[in-house]
């Protein structure tokens, strides 16, 4: 019993690391640019397809292909901010919500047209390897993904707290108007925020590839997970999103283990609805809009 429980918690934490990369991106964009990116999961999907094609065409290891997927998506993020999102920043919610929503629909359906709905997998030498610790079972691919994900989150934290650009982003997220008065160029900060967030999503995609299938709809689950984690963690709170993502990974995994194979998502929705009912400002308190 305890072993099953510990195993479920480990599985949950490992996948929670990936959720964290996606939700940190969502919360970063929300904090800095004040928009919700409905397309975040689709960028995970794009990261997965990049890794899949590099692997199947050139034999590149999916985890090594991070060095391609992250820069490609960083540039995509900068372009999307500069040419699309910049045009709808204003007091009105409607264009902001539906622009990123349209982007999500567009990317998903383009993927469906170009790559068909088939599941694509990459088999690596370590895909089936696992460590055995006592009675516990730790798959290597998921462990690597988790460690790299935590490393990237740590790197982001250092970036936000030590570099000028990172501090400018945090300033813009705390009080945009004052930050502008201090001479921070909003569009530049927003472009970097989008770029970083999308690069993280791309990284999540590449890290998933050794043990997860790529298909056009794969991003939707990650978007939903990220939204729940961002609400749980407090809107715009990077650390909150990280902790909440790990919690959700564990909750989902416990749901799968103890309620039934298809009830992971039900547990996640239940968490969202309970949070909304009792702590609408997130578990940490914080300020909801």
């Amino acid at each position, binding site marked *: 019993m305890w072993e099953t429980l510990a195993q479920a918690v480990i599985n949950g934490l490992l996948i929670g690391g990936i959720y964290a990369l996606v939700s940190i991106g969502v919360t970063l964009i929300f904090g800095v640019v004040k928009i919700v990116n409905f397309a975040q999961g689709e960028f995970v999907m794009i990261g997965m397809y990049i890794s899949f094609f590099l692997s199947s065409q050139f034999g590149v290891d999916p985890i090594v292909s991070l060095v391609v997927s992250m820069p490609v998506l960083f540039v995509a993020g900068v372009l999307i901010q500069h040419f699309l999102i910049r045009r709808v920043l204003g007091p009105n*919610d*409607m264009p902001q919500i539906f622009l990123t929503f*349209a*982007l999500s629909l567009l990317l*998903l*359906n383009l993927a469906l047209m170009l790559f068909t709905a088939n599941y694509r997998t990459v088999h690596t030498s370590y895909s089936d390897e696992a460590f055995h610790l006592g009675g516990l079972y730790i798959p290597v691919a998921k462990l690597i993904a988790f460690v790299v994900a935590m490393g990237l989150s740590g790197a982001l934290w250092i970036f936000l707290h030590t570099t000028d650009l990172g501090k400018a982003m945090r300033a813009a997220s705390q009080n945009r108007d004052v930050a502008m008065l201090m001479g921070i160029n909003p569009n530049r900060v927003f472009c970097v925020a989008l770029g970083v967030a999308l690069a993280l999503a791309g990284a999540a995609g590449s890290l998933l590839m050794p043990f997860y299938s790529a298909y056009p709809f794969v991003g939707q689950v990650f978007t939903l997970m990220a939204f729940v984690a961002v609400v749980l963690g407090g809107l715009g709170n990077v650390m909150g999103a990280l902790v909440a993502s790990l919690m959700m990974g564990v909750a989902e995994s416990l749901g799968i283990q103890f309620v039934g194979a298809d009830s992971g998502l039900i547990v996640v929705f239940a968490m969202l609805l309970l949070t*909304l009912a009792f702590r609408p400002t997130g578990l940490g308190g914080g300020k*909801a*809009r």
Partner: protein
Amino acid sequence: MIVTRNLLWLALGLAILIALPLVVKSSFAVDIFIRILLFSFIGVAWNLMGGYAKQLSLGHAAYFGLGAYTSTILQIDFGVSPWIGMVAGGVVAMLASLPIGWLCFRLRGPYFTIATIATAQALMLIFLKFRDFAWGAEGTTIPNLGSAPLMMQFEGKAAYYYVVLGLLVSGLTITWLIERSWMGYYLVAIGEDEDAAEAIGVNAPRIKRDIYMISSFLTALAGTFYTQYIYFIDPATAFSFNISIEAALVSIVGGIGTLWGPVIGTVLLETTSALLQSWLGGSVGGIQLTVYSLILMAIILWRPTGLIGVATEAYRRFASRRPARA
């Protein structure tokens, strides 16, 4: 003068719509007309809350599905006519909108939207999971009784066309009445700036709750109709995310928060979709929504007032070029 002229145009339009299935016999064409009327009606229902009060829900499939399931369960398990089931479904949806609204309205803006998506998805999962209660993932077919107007089953598509035309006309009438009442002004005030509206004494939570109930009721009627029309129900079609998307999309493309916006948006989108289908033979998956999302992006970036806005602008430019009447 203007009122009578508008009434004349309306009467003419309605007469054409009533005559349409008598003239057009192709069942392919009538099927497209039915889709246009149905999605116009869903858009009109969405627009009441999403358009006037700017509460941008992407979870209206929840009510579409509840309506569809209520009438189907009543019909198959209890032999109740779908005509009664339709109203019952509306009432169930209306009651369900109370707790759902209580939860979702705690959030504003994009997070309200996310909460509505989550509730619709959660409902779909519930219907997928509870097999004994509602046939689980396989769904069920509606027993075909041949021609049974009392059970909302007709021979030929024309009768379905008149049913959904009736729904659309009543939806538009309700919108027209609300638009002109104090409630319409309150809704627009909430949509413009909720805090400001509350500051001048609008009871925003109550108004939002009431309009959500009306909007859910109407959406549920569409759910019952659709199930009766395709003789089949399962959680994936009844709670399809595409229903939620299309409800919002047609309103935004046509003109958000306007009486005719959803109708105009649906005519454009559904015609495009039908043309694409006859042109490509439906062989390429995803093309329809690719085109929809491009249209949506273009509207948001260049004409946020929708096609109605484009038309009004063009009319004004045309009118200002004419010499003023003496």
